[in-house]
């Protein structure tokens, strides 16, 4: 069973599927990607990403702000995609 995360969206509780997590050695943070399966007008599925402190726990997520973090997440997604396709 996959993990779920419950968010408040537009005043309603929405259950999201956790898609991936990873750890960054350089800053010691954990990163999470999840989706509520909503889509953009052009049909793309939304993936929400955030970071959290492994000690504080996932109860408190932090926004991805730096370009380096975005670049890293992008590369992780690329790798996951490559691995999934090669399996």
């Amino acid at each position, binding site marked *: 069973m*996959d*993990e*779920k*995360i*419950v*968010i*408040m969206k537009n005043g309603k*509780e929405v259950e999201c*599927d*956790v*898609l*991936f*997590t*990873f*750890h*960054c*050695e*350089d*800053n010691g943070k954990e*990163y999470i*990607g999840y989706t509520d399966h909503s*889509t*953009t007008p052009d*049909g*793309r*599925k*939304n*993936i*929400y*990403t*955030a970071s959290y*402190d492994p*000690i*504080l*726990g*996932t*109860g*408190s*997520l*932090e*926004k*991805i*702000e730096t370009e*380096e*973090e*975005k*670049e*890293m*997440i*992008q*590369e*992780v*997604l690329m*790798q*996951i*995609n490559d*691995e*999934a*396709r090669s*399996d």
Partner: protein
Amino acid sequence: MNLENALRVLGVDPKYATRGEVKRAKRLLERDMTRGDNEEYQKMINDAYEVVSSSIKKEDERRDNPIFDTSPAFQIKNIEEQIKIANENFMEIFKNELNEALEKGPFNEKDYEAFTNKYQTLKEEANKKLIALNQLKETYENQDTILGLPDHSLKDSILDSVNPYKQEKNQTEKQLPAVVSEKTYEDFMIDKKDEPVLGLPDHSLKDNILDSVNPYKQKRNQTKKQLPAVVSEKNYQDFMFNEEDRGLKQILSDLKTGLGLKKNDHKKLRASNIKVASNFKQELSSGNYLYNVVHFIPSIIKVPIQLAKKLKNSIFKDKEANDRIEKLKVRVNNLSDRDLDVIYHEYRSSKVTEQMAPTVLNDLLNQKVREYAMKNVETLNEEVKSSYLNIFSSLRQLESLDEMLENKNINTQMRKKLESRKNTLLEGKAEVIKDLREKQVRANEWLSSGLHGFEEDMKAAESKMSYVGKRFAKRYDDDEGLSQKEAQLEKEEKYAIRTGNDKMALKSFVESETLLSENTDIKNSIFGKRSTGKRYYSPLAKMLDYRPDPFVRDVYTSAAIVGASLATINGMLTAKEKQNILENQSQTANMHNEEVINKVNEAGENLQAQSDTFMKGIKEQSNQAVNDAAGTIERAALDKHNWNIGTNKYHTADKMGHNYYNEFYQNTENSFTEVMNKYQEGTLSQADALGAFKDIANKTQENLNQVYASCRPIMEKYAHAHSHLDLEGTLEAMKSLTENPTAIMDMNDAMINTANIGEELTGLTLEQVNTINSLPSDLGTTLLGAATAAALAINVSNTTSNNEKQGKYGNEVTQMVAEYASSKSQTEQQIAKTA
């Protein structure tokens, strides 16, 4: 008499007579013309006068007359002739004398004396002329070069001003040639042999060796002279490169070559431990989905704690960047000591800017060079330590020897041996101390190089976030007396080293070190050790940096003090609320307030003193836990036996007791929840909430104590009557609790006091606070957690003591000096007492 004869009378060769001599001859003639003593003589004089008179009139003739030629060459020639004449005269006379001697026989003394007197004058005159000749030659030699003296026949030439023979009116004494000034001499006189004028070859020289190297000499059909051939690259590498020529740029080039380092390599964040949901992987593999990555945080309602468990592992591979950096790391780690030395000394300041090396390389080099520098520091520190041991062990022995020598009863032979031993111990101490001081300087230079290093040292010392025990160190107004005393001892030590005075050097060194040690004071504090002295004795070089003080880290990573308070709160609040509160606290904390720090440290000392209270309270709390468990067992046992044992009265009492206990517990829990809600709403501060918790806990405990006190006699009788029930533990617990009714309440009070201090200390890093969050969050264990945290504070204090013993916060040198100072003080006190 003519002029020529008149000159001869004066002893002057008419050919070389000067104008002055001619005039004298004329005056002689005039004078002698009036004499009537000797007709023949008078006739000679008269003739000479006529000649002279007629000669003087002819100015032009005189001018052309070589007699009046005053050129240096002429003068030299004149003197040479005179010398020649003198020599010829001398030889002639000598020859005559020799012949006479051969005829008459050897000289007798009288003859010899006459001979000597006769020729001495001639000899002296010849010598004078020789000297004059040499002087003239030195002055006017080579006058025939192009830059030589002008023609002597020129009227009003520049030489007239330096012509020593130019006679002015009233000039009496013949002047020797004026010494030509150095400037004038060098201007005019150039040695033809040594230095061609203006570098041009002598015009008279043709086809000599100069032509062969003169690049400007043009010959017919001569092709253009070629410059030296450019050495081919191959040749250059073959014999130019040498290991000793390997410099900074070569080292950096070797590090970077072939890697293709990117500008952002240092910024690359690397992921690891990637876990992927299986559904997501399936989606991806299908290739049917496109995604939009969104980076924002919605409001979180519920999040699983152990998120990672269910997801599949994956390993992140950024092959290219990782490979680059890994290869670079290997190269940096393999740098030789020589290379590191070059980098340490040369790769700084403007050189770093000049090279514009990729940041990742600079980061790695920084780390590596730091390690290299520390290695050198450690080596020097070990050597310094060894010197200290040498000095202080010698010192102890010297003091023992002095004591023995004070004994008047020892014989001469023994005394000699002791003195000899003393001298052996003292010998070379000045050199040892000199070497020690130099090594201390070099070690500090390794740690703090250049102006930037100097500034960083000042900043670190000012912020006190530098080295052990100094973070909360006490500050003092300047003590001039102490500084002057230090300066005096330093001066004496340097003097003693310079003059090789071993005894004085040892004395000054030891006094200087003990003075530092005596003014260093380290006290226990809530943070471990804290410097409270006017000086901080550190004989071994230590790195100054901004990382947290290890004492502070030791305290808070053990979740002490602050953990005691925050653990209580943590279990009551939602994650988000808690995060905000913690962040606010970290922003508002002010750790630099001296009063606060002093207060904290006083409280810390109180905390240390209350360690027994904490241990007792913890023990009692443990007993209480035992009691609760035993109570459960008891009830189960009774239920099993269907409560058939015991009277109805007991039953009733027991039931009432349990009901009471349960109700009472529920009330307690409600009280806690109420306080928690108020805190969450913000109507209570953390300190107030903690105070409220303490009150609830104490009230609860008080009630419990009353129950235990009233039930204990009943339980004792019951236990004796029901030996098949293991109630011994329960009885012991109840007994302990009733005998120590305030133990847990005292512990709660102490915890709250320290927790209030903790509120003032919440400016600490979140990392330190985070450890609290790992504690269990349910109510019952929260209090136990708080008590545990407080106990941990005690453990931390013990840990820091152990670390000190292991040399983590001091070292054997400081301890050695401190022990010596202490023993010295004790000895002096004893001496004072016995005096």
